[in-house]
């Protein structure tokens, strides 16, 4: 494999990791506050659909992003209502949200555009174009460093840079602010937070809302950046890979960046090489595709370090009276 191919694979790694990173950080906020969310997939799907629809109708990519965030927030609201207010089972609520998104996107897509669930293909202002960073053209001819800067770092869409910026922002919010301390405390010991006079319900709803915004960005990037429009079931399990990355990252923002880049890399390799020939035997492409899931199971089994979820995760908080 030569250098140019490697750069290409890494370039597509960055693209493919971006939706995973948004979704992974989304899950991080929700789960750190003690609300399990297996509905990341559904929220991404709904966001991808509405963002593509709005971008197709208005021709504005940013209106599309806003619409995507709106769709995702709506589903987050349902999740919050079910799991925080009505103290329902958070896992079941997540399952319901996934199905709701999967059905409604096709139903509405067929009604609005009549293309069998797809949205019209986006062109021009309707989707994200590449941003060329300063001096990219000047540095490009320099060997080694040139291609790394011009092709790998420069030339992505705005949301890619936003996703990367979200990592330090999340770390700062979680570990350096009062809100972050409370959010993490709500996920570990909600009763203690309640005793301190802080609303557990309020913190959990804000965490679920942040999760909604980030999932919205993940879905919008899928439809407006990675692809040019919405296709039926286009998330294709990315919400669950993000969940896997979250566990791999042990619920920490910087680790999340590493985990999503790894899973993005696996997907990029799988796309580039349908099967990998090792001389003695060939690794089938299906194995490479299943690798993120297999890795997650191995991590969950505690063979590579112990992943400890937030203690109060999954449990509705019942205030004592």
């Amino acid at each position, binding site marked *: 494999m030569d250098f140019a191919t490697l750069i290409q694979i890494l370039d597509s790694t960055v693209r493919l990791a971006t939706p995973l990173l948004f979704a992974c950080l989304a899950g991080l906020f929700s789960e750190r506050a003690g609300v399990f969310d297996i509905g990341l997939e559904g929220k991404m799907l709904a966001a991808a659909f509405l963002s593509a629809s709005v971008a197709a109708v208005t021709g504005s990519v940013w209106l599309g992003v806003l619409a995507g965030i709106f769709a995702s927030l709506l589903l987050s609201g349902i999740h919050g209502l079910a799991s925080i207010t*009505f103290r329902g089972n958070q896992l079941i609520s997540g399952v319901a949200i996934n199905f709701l998104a999967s059905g409604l996107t*096709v139903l509405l897509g067929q009604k609005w555009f009549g293309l069998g669930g797809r949205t019209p293909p986006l062109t021009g202002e309707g989707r994200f174009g590449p941003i060329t960073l300063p001096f990219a053209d000047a540095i490009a001819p320099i060997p080694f460093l040139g291609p790394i800067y011009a092709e790998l770092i420069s030339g992505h869409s705005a949301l890619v840079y936003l996703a990367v910026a979200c990592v330090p922002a999340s770390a700062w919010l979680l570990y350096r602010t009062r809100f972050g301390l409370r959010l993490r405390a709500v996920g570990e010991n909600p009763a203690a937070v309640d005793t301190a006079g802080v609303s557990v319900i309020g913190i959990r709803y804000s965490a679920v809302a942040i999760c909604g915004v980030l999932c919205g960005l993940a879905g919008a990037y899928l439809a407006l950046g990675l692809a040019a429009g919405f296709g039926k079931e286009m998330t294709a399990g990315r919400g669950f890979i993000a969940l896997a990355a979250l566990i791999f990252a042990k619920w920490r923002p910087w680790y999340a960046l590493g985990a999503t880049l790894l899973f993005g890399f696996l997907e990029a390799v799988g796309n580039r090489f349908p099967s990998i020939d090792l001389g003695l035997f060939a690794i089938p492409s299906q194995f490479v595709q299943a690798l993120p899931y297999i890795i997650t199971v191995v991590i969950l089994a505690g063979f590579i370090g112990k992943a400890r979820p937030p203690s109060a995760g999954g449990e509705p908080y019942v205030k004592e009276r």
Partner: protein
Amino acid sequence: MTAMPKWADAVLVPLISLVIAFVISGIVILAIGEDPVAAMKLMVTGALGSTYGWGYTLYYSTNFIFTGLAVSVAFQAGLFNIGGEGQASLGGLGVALACLFVPWPHWSLALIGAAAMAALFGAAWAAIPAYLQAKRGSHVVITTIMFNYIAAALMIYVLVTVLRPTGAMDTASARFDPALKLPRLGDILALVGIPFNNRNPANISLLIALVACVGVWLLMWRTRLGYQLRAFGKSEKASVYAGINPVKITMYAMLISGGLSGMMAINTVMGEAQRLLLNSVEGAGFIGIAVALMGRSHPVGVLLAAILFGFLYQGGAELALWTTIPRELIIVIQALVILFTGAMDNMVRKPVESLFLLLQRGKA
């Protein structure tokens, strides 16, 4: 808070939740510019108006009985087995291997052998998540989701490179021996003189599903193991204190659950397709969740809920055929049923509870 009579808990609350789910579904149909009443009429005539429709309804119901029972058994033991989809597709692999490579003298023996293989393969696919939950505390929900995806990749690999006959274009196994064809429901009912359409896939697996319902009931409420499973589900701490082995119970619950999911394949793979197709499960594993929630994890409830979802499935297919409403409407209804009977249960339960409290106070 035991003001609510048993019947209200078992029937009234799920029924109200169901009504809410259907009202919202009706609103969704209105929102996409169709007439909900006409849609409902079409669904009823399409799914229940003829023995042909009934055949399809019961065919789908058979799948949902198996997957619903599977989720129920795990639920009773306090475990959420979301991996029915993967377990059922592995069950399909078991059925295909049994039917392709064993020279069965008669379909009845083949059915027993295939059902055993289906259960074995399904249980095996549930075994690793079960073991990891029992021994290492890895959350069974996440591991079973992961195993669904691993199963999907595995099935593609097996069908593309191993089971596909050389030269065949579609990703499917070879056809089974025609002698292994299962008797259709129409044939069976004809024996007792009931005329029933024979051009539908409903087959003898339905009877096995009914037997499975009775079996699960006997297991859960008439055996020591069933008692242990339910006790473990109610309170893990108390049951461990009472001497119940948590590792053993978790394993049993998940293995039984996986086996039941896997057995779904005798209906789809052996009863209908007569060969192993890619994605032979078609979401039935997930519908099991809705069925179990609606049926309150009781075999009778599961049976009724499975028939309801069978009706929805067949009715939805008819809708897609005759109107512009896509089949995905069923997924929306399924989501709403899961949401209201599962996650938002308290939304209905609390008001009903206070209503009964009020009534009691009125009497006193």
